[in-house]
């Protein structure tokens, strides 16, 4: 009888633990990680701020959004571990930040290329 009771309590406890965390959706996480890889590949993390394009943190706008994306992705993982459904929204926020960072990086690549058309492609595309 005591054994049954212990087993019931144990199973309930492990069940509650299982429900406490919720995994982030695989597809969205993969998409996010692929976007980060792309940002690394095109050199968005190495973009430096210039006089006309400086974000609030003193970095290039693209890099700032990558930092924000990273922060929000980490937060999403922590929230998911504690079973908070808002983790999905933080993942979406992170994705929107990395998308914008990629856009800004690609724009930065086109912009200098215009003023120095005879000097070859922009250095951010490696």
């Amino acid at each position, binding site marked *: 009888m005591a054994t049954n009771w212990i087993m019931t309590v144990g199973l309930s406890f492990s069940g509650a633990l299982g429900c406490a965390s919720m995994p982030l959706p695989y597809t969205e996480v993969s998409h996010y990680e692929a976007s980060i890889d792309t940002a690394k590949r095109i050199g968005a993390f190495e973009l430096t701020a210039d006089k006309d394009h400086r974000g609030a943190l003193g970095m290039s706008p693209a890099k700032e959004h990558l930092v924000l994306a990273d922060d929000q992705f980490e937060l999403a993982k922590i929230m998911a571990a504690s079973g908070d459904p808002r983790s999905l929204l933080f993942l979406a926020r992170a*994705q929107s930040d990395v998308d*914008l960072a990629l*856009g800004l990086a690609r724009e930065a690549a086109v912009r200098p290329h215009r003023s120095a058309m005879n000097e070859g492609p922009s250095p951010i595309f490696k």
Partner: protein
Amino acid sequence: MKANMSKGSVLHATCSVVLAAVTGSCATGSVPATLIEARRSLVASSTGLADALALSYLEDAKEMLERANREFALHGNSDLCRDYSYIAENKFELADTVARAELFRQTQEGEGVGPGRSLRSEDARSSTGWPTAPVR
């Protein structure tokens, strides 16, 4: 470029903001700053380059802003409303960025390339690799 900014889109953007303000006034809590920013971006982007050169990105951003407005009308200044507003704001900025880059690209290609070629998501994916990540 002014020819591309249709009066209809300006009117539509203005009506959206007014409607959102009216419905928002019925909701509980003050309007979150992110939502205000996103609404401002709607007007700016709808009357700017994005309306002509990055229409699909702009539509994506508008859809997200609609969600934020709806959420605000239903539940006021909620986490969900702020999250949607944040994403909408980023999407508006992305639409503007894509449009600016497209304008640069067209300028580089010479005067022979006529204005008004909209950079669609499909084109972007296949040729330039622009990010496309509509949040559903």
